């Protein structure tokens, strides 16, 4: 395993900032709150950026960058959704999503690195796997949080039903991420491929 270079660190840090902006994109573009099924879903680009981090930075640096995002937010910098920060964000029911980004970036990066020059199909598959990890971990965490430390008994299926509008929007964005990547790779060498 090679040592991280200066360029790795700066790109990792930039993705932390992108995550912070992606989580709160509606602050700058309030109308990105999209109405789906009667409710207004604030469009967050977090899953999108976590998947991109996996593609661009690779499995090791990508997951390290997402861990940095988690730690920095926990340290009180208001970079989580809703411009919040602090350790409580991890205890609250949606904390699992923040934790899952580490694994999203890792596995997406793993797939991208496996195929040396991925096609759009591989990118789409990787993005969808990333999305499934994101929601699988996030919703399970929500279910566990509700039933243990919040002592609210809800069933696993209800936890999922509440997340469906978000899942739809993130599914679309994940596919956008995949098509985006094909364009990026033409213009910019990926970090894990650079010598």
């Amino acid at each position, binding site marked *: 395993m090679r040592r991280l270079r200066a360029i790795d660190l700066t790109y990792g840090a930039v993705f932390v900032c992108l995550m912070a902006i992606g989580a709160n994109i509606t602050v700058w*573009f309030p109308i990105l709150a999209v109405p789906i099924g009667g409710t207004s879903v604030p469009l967050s680009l977090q899953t999108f950026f976590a998947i991109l981090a996996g593609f661009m930075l690779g499995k090791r640096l990508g997951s390290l960058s997402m861990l940095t995002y988690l730690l*920095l937010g926990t340290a009180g910098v208001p*970079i989580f959704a809703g411009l919040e920060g602090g350790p409580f964000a991890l205890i609250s029911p949606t904390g699992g999503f923040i934790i899952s980004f580490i694994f999203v970036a890792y596995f997406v990066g793993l797939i991208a690195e496996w195929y040396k020059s991925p096609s759009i199909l591989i990118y789409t598959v990787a993005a969808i796997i990333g999305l499934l990890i994101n929601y699988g971990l996030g919703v399970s965490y929500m279910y566990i949080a509700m039933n243990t430390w919040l002592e609210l008994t809800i069933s696993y299926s209800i936890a999922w039903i509440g997340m469906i509008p978000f899942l739809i929007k993130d599914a679309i964005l994940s596919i956008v991420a995949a098509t985006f990547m094909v364009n990026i790779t033409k213009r910019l060498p990926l970090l894990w491929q650079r010598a």
Partner: protein
Amino acid sequence: MNNSLIIGQYVPGNSLVHKLDPRTKITIIFFYVITVFFANSLASYSVLVVFALACMFTSRVPLRFIMKGLTPVWFLIIFTFILHLFVTKEGTVIFDFWIFEFYSGGVIQGFAISIRFFLLILVTSLLTLTTTPIEITDAIEDMLRPLNKVRFPVHELALMMSISLRFIPTLMQETDKISRAQASRGVDFRTGPIKDRIKAVVPLLVPLFVSAFKRAEELAMAMEARGYQGGEGRTKLRELKIELRDIMVYLLFACVIALLFLTRNYS
């Protein structure tokens, strides 16, 4: 908003809580959060409440800052309380209203969970209210140092946290500029079907990426030009030091935990 991005929620001060080593604070809060879940009797809850309030008052952080931390979770607290009121059917009926019956068990449990919530938020926000993100970064770097043995890049992680801290306000300003620039060119972010709104993300992302990656490249170049070679042999500007007051606070906290387990209900 930009100010809060650099210093987090930090409220400057000169109290004992401010002066404690950040590692001490993180360790104590970590164990406090765990022990909160062990409390199950009135006495054990009181022990925890007294400790939390004592910390709050010694920190001398103005109350409004603490209340600000509570605002996003009021809803969650009230919601859990009311849900328990309706759902838990234990103990005796104490209140009868229309078709609803409120049981004493529900009230007690609702209260206990609200208090637990309140304590968790109070104590965790005290950490971020009295410690700057930079101090926490230093503490994390130091506390994770054993992971160096398994070749986990601890120093790099901490450096990445510092770099992000410097970039976040800049890139957020950049996003603001981009949104104005695109609006002045007539991009409509306000209306339209979902497909168009998602498409509107692209003219945002492309300039944001260009600017973000350019900054990353430039900083990396600057670091290399100044001879950055990783963590080995690097000295620190800020040194962490455990003082007598940290040891005293650890001892006090050990007493609190002992008291909690003594007053706990074991039946």
